[in-house]
C-alpha cells in the first residue's frame, strides 16, 4: 500500500557522484601535483557549465524541475501521501472515541482557585457560564495531563519513553506537513555552477612543496624546517 521504494536511476547517481567528485577535488587539491589539478579544474569547470553531468541536459536553464513532470518525484510524493492517509484513520478513530466517551461531564475539582480566563481551557465542551473554574471537564483534564506529564515522564522514565502520547500526535502532524511539501528538488545545475565557481578560484598549494625538508627533519638530519626549501 505504501508503494515500492523508488528504483535508483543511473543518471541520478551519476549526477550526485559528479558533484561529490568536484567537492573532493576542492577539498583535497593540495595532494596532487599542480598539473593534475589544472587539468581537472579546466575539465570540470567546463563540464559543470555545460551541464555535462545533469540528468536532463537539455533543460538545464529552466530552473528547478517541475515536480509534476518528473514521474519519479510524483511517485515519491504519492508514496508519502498514501502513508499519511493510512496514519490518519487510526488517529481519527482515537480522537472520536475520546470525544464520545469523555466529553460532557466534570471530572475533577482543582484545589486552588483560578481566574475566569482559564474557563475556556479547563471546561472545553461544557457550556455552563456560571460554573466555577475549579471544576475541570474530562476532555480538558485529558489534554492537561497529556501535555503536562510529558516532562515528568521524561524525568522518571528517561527520554524516548512510550508513555508519551504527544509523539503520535506530532507524527500525524508531520505527515500532514510532509505530504503537502515533499521538499524542493535539489537544483543540481545551480549546485554545479556554484561548485564551478569555488573550483575556479582554488589556489594550488602543493602539500609536497617542502616534503624534502620534512623528511630530513623526520629522520633527524635537520633540526627544523627552514622557510625557503631551496638549498
Amino acid at each position: 500500500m505504501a508503494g515500492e521504494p523508488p528504483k535508483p536511476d543511473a543518471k541520478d547517481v551519476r549526477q550526485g557522484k559528479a558533484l561529490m567528485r568536484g567537492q573532493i577535488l576542492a577539498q583535497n587539491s593540495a595532494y596532487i601535483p599542480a598539473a593534475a589539478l589544472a587539468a581537472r579544474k579546466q575539465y570540470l569547470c567546463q563540464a559543470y557549465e555545460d551541464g555535462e553531468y545533469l540528468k536532463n541536459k537539455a533543460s538545464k536553464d529552466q530552473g528547478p524541475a517541475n515536480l509534476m513532470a518528473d514521474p519519479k518525484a510524483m511517485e515519491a510524493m504519492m508514496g508519502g501521501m498514501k502513508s499519511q492517509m493510512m496514519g490518519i484513520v487510526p488517529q481519527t478513530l482515537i480522537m472520536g472515541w475520546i470525544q464520545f466517551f469523555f466529553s460532557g461531564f466534570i471530572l475533577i475539582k482543582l484545589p486552588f482557585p483560578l481566574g475566569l480566563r482559564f474557563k475556556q481551557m479547563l471546561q472545553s465542551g461544557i457550556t455552563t457560564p456560571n460554573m466555577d473554574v475549579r471544576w475541570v471537564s474530562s476532555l480538558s483534564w485529558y489534554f492537561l495531563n497529556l501535555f503536562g506529564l510529558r516532562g515528568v515522564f521524561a524525568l522518571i522514565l528517561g527520554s524516548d519513553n512510550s508513555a508519551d502520547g504527544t509523539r503520535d500526535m506530532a507524527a500525524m502532524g508531520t505527515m500532514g506537513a510532509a505530504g503537502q511539501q515533499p521538499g524542493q528538488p535539489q537544483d543540481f545545475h545551480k549546485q554545479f555552477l556554484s561548485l564551478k565557481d569555488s573550483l575556479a578560484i582554488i589556489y594550488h598549494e602543493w602539500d609536497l612543496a617542502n616534503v624534502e625538508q620534512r623528511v630530513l627533519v623526520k629522520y633527524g638530519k635537520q633540526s627544523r624546517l627552514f622557510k625557503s626549501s631551496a638549498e
Partner: protein
Amino acid sequence: MSSPLELLAELRQSSERRPLETLKLAAPVLNTGAAARAGDDRWLVYEQVFVAAIDDGDMDLAKTVLALLHKQFDGSQRVRRLYGMYNDAAGHPEAAKKLYDEMLAADETNVLASKRLIAQLKAQGHVAEAVGRLVEYVDTHANDFEAWLELAALYLRQHLYPQAAFCLEEVILQQPANHYFHLCYAEINYTMGCLDVALKEYLRVVELSTDNVRGFYGVKLTADRIRELRSRPKKEQPAWIGAAPQPAMLERLAQLATERLVAAYGGAGAAPKRAVEAWLSE
C-alpha cells in the same frame, strides 16, 4: 589466541584472497555447531567460505554453502551475484553473463553486477573492452576509488602510463593519507620519466610510512638520476629540471636513503647486507 571466527573477520576486513587459509580456518566452524552459535556473522562466514571454495576449486563445498545462503536470503542480489560467480568458476560464463545482465536490467545502478561483468571481460582477456566498460562505470560512480585502482591496473597492463597516473591521482584525491597509493603513483611517474614528481611522491611515502624500503629505494634512484641529469648539457635536460631540488639537497636525500636502507637490512644477515651496500655505493 584469536578464535577462528575472529581471524576470519580480520581476513574479511583486509579483503585478501587467501583461499587455503580461509578454508582451513572455516572447516571447524562449519563442521561443528560453532556456525549456528555465531549468530548473524555466520552468513558473512558462509559468503567468505564460498569465495574461498571456488578459488580453491572445491565446487561441492561451494554449492552446499550457496544453497544455505539461498535458503536464508531468497531473492537477494548479493546471493544472485554469488550464483553468477559460481557459474563463472564452473566454466559457464554465458550463464553467468545472462544473470548479470538480468540484474542490471532490473536495476541499472547495481554495482555488484557491473563489476562482475567487467571482471568477466578481464578474465577472458578482452582488456580493451573491460577498460571501456570500466571507464563508463567510473563515469557514473566517480567516488569508487577501488574501481579507479582497477582501471589503473588495466592501463598499466597496456603500458598506458599517463592514463594510469590520472587514475592514481583520482585515488589519491579520495585517500590522500594512504602511503601505498602514493607509492604506486611515484612508481608510475618514475617509469614515465617525471622524476621531479616521482621524487616528491617517494619522499611522501617515507614520510607517511617510516623506513619504507621501497620508498627509500625510490628516493635513492630518483635522487641519483636527477643529479645525473643535471650534470648533462643544457639541451639534454628535460623540461622539469628547473623545478627539481638542487644538487646539495639531492646529495643529502641520497645519503639519508642509503643510511636507512642499510639500517633496514641490518638484521638480514651478512650476505644480503653486503649486496645492498655494494649496490648502494655505485
